[in-house]
């Protein structure tokens, strides 16, 4: 198995984009191709969840291949729910590592705002179990809310802790020009003030408005190459060092221990093993905070903090920029936005940016290793990636 390096990255602003889906994917891809100095690739993977349903378009990868004039490269779309992005990166990795391809373009894209909010909520809810969950009207916020309630009961996490994650991440996004939200919020405004209930109403109790990520459109792209190609292109030598993926029960109620995210734990363990790293070695991390409770739970399951103590580290400021274990310094999903198929690739984009030293105001000083955690379904399909800077 060959080593795989990142030669180029690209991203669009995450916001409401009035562009067709193919164009959004192509914009980010073009940026990555220019970054790498390439006009040809061997293979394209496009990560996306909703094109057939929300955008009335199928065979998206074929469209992107043509739009980028990359014919006759092979192309395929990868749908893995909210973990499409990292799953597509895994496919790209396998193509290069196996020796089959030397240059692979991985683009993630989503255009959720082509439909209204109610339709978008329903679209995301289709990942739940059709006969035992979806028909009841369960939504992802509902799942996260029930999970949060258990976490609050078992580990003493409070609404305040959840709000702290929201404030940390939304305000971190102010340092990221590509992020969806560019509005500062305060703990007082969303939690303490007499008007907090109107500012921050319940979405699904106990989760509130600022505990959930926005609905966004956007695209991100990354180019994976062999070692020889990376040296030839002369870009910073950043290696995709570890990948882990694990699945768990489809129906959330069938999880062994309702407060555990076993797929996160296993995916991270496999990524660490493959890369020869352990949690202490990670300098900067991108966790999947579609809901604030998930950042807390994931920070424990990937091994940064003991189980049940993620909120304690949060309180101490350890997970903010400048802290011992900076998490989501670019805004995470909460601040940057969550175009579902693009997120996994956008997380990789942020980590590569950090490892290149291009983080500007949000740069984690001296970052040499990074981790991304892409959480699919409601924890039933999780992909973990690790990156290291070698030069």
């Amino acid at each position, binding site marked *: 198995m060959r080593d795989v390096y990142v030669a180029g990255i690209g991203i669009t602003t995450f916001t409401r984009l009035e562009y067709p889906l193919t164009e959004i994917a192509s914009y980010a891809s073009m940026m990555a191709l220019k970054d790498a100095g390439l006009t040809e690739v061997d293979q394209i993977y496009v990560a996306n969840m909703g094109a057939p349903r929300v955008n009335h378009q199928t065979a998206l990868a074929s469209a992107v291949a043509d739009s980028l004039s990359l014919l006759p490269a092979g192309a395929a779309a990868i749908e893995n729910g909210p973990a499409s992005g990292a799953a597509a990166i895994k496919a790209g990795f396998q193509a290069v590592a196996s020796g089959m391809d030397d240059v692979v373009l991985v683009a993630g894209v989503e255009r959720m705002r082509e439909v209204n*909010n*109610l339709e978008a909520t329903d679209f995301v809810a289709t990942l739940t179990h059709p006969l035992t969950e979806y028909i009841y009207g369960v939504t992802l916020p509902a799942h996260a809310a029930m999970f949060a309630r258990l976490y609050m009961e078992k580990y003493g996490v409070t609404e305040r802790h959840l709000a702290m994650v929201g404030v940390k991440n939304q305000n971190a996004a102010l340092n990221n020009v590509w992020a969806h939200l560019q*509005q500062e*919020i305060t703990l007082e405004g969303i939690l303490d003030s007499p*008007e907090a209930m*109107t500012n921050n109403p319940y979405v699904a109790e106990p989760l509130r408005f600022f505990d959930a990520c926005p609905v966004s459109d956007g695209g991100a792209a990354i180019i994976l190459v062999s070692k020889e190609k990376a040296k030839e292109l002369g870009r910073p030598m950043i290696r995709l060092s570890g990948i882990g993926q694990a699945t768990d029960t489809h129906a959330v109620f069938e999880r062994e221990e309702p407060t555990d995210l076993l797929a996160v734990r296993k995916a991270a363990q496999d990524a660490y093993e493959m890369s020869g790293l352990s949690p202490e070695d990670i300098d900067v991390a991108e966790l999947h905070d579609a809901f604030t409770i998930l950042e807390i739970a994931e920070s424990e399951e990937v091994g940064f903090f003991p189980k049940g103590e993620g909120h304690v580290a949060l309180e101490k400021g350890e997970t903010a920029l400048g802290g011992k274990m900076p998490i989501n310094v670019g805004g995470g999903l909460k601040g940057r936005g969550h175009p579902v198929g693009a997120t996994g690739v956008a997380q990789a984009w942020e980590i590569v940016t950090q490892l290149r030293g291009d983080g500007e105001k949000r740069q984690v000083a001296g970052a040499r290793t990074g981790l991304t955690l892409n959480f699919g379904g409601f924890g039933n399909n999780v992909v973990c990636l690790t990156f290291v800077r070698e030069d």
Partner: protein
Amino acid sequence: MSVDLEKILRPIDHDLAPYEPKYMMLASGEAVVVRQVFRDEIPDLLKHVEPLIHVERDFYDVVAARVYAELLGYYKHRFQDQYVLALQVDGELAAIVNGREVKPGLGLSLHTLAMRRGLRIGAHGFAAKMEYHIDTLGHDEVLIVAESPIGFRRWMIEYKLEKRFEIPHELGGVPSWALTRELFDRARSKLVVGRRPVPPPLLEKAMEKILPPSDPPTPPLDPLAATRALYDPTATALVQQRWEMEKGAGNA
């Protein structure tokens, strides 16, 4: 013998009790002041509403065009018993809400137009309006409709408004919904937020002058591009407009 036409054309406004200003803290930690705007300040509002007529998304165009007409009608004495409330953050206009009295005991909500997004200012404005109708003007019922689906969900379903479908709302004749005193009282703890009185420096800043919104929704360069695109299957008008905007913005 000259006939005073104005006397015939001008509606007679009843004495509506004035709105007592209040203030709230937003999610950003900033304070927003809600206060009534009278005829003399309407021109200051009109100039900030006009650009929104050309923003073709989220029904801004329809709402802004109607608000413009309502405010102008109020200003020129061709609209009976209308009130206008402005929401200001540090003097800057953040939202306009308006409504009118149909007859004693019955109010009608006209519009909520927010210039500042992402902080639920529209929600604050709407609640302030309802409080004014029911608590201050003594209306037993307020008739409401919504242009946008977001408005519909929030108001009709969340507040559990009652159907008054036999009454066509003057905004296009669509079936009306009603907020009754009973419904309002039940939702009071959720609906009636904000504090009075407004601290003098805050109130002074708001009353001094209506400052332009710093980051309002922007109209496209070609105002009717989206509409024209409906008749142009290749959507070329939209594409070209977008490229023009790109050159200006320099960013996707």
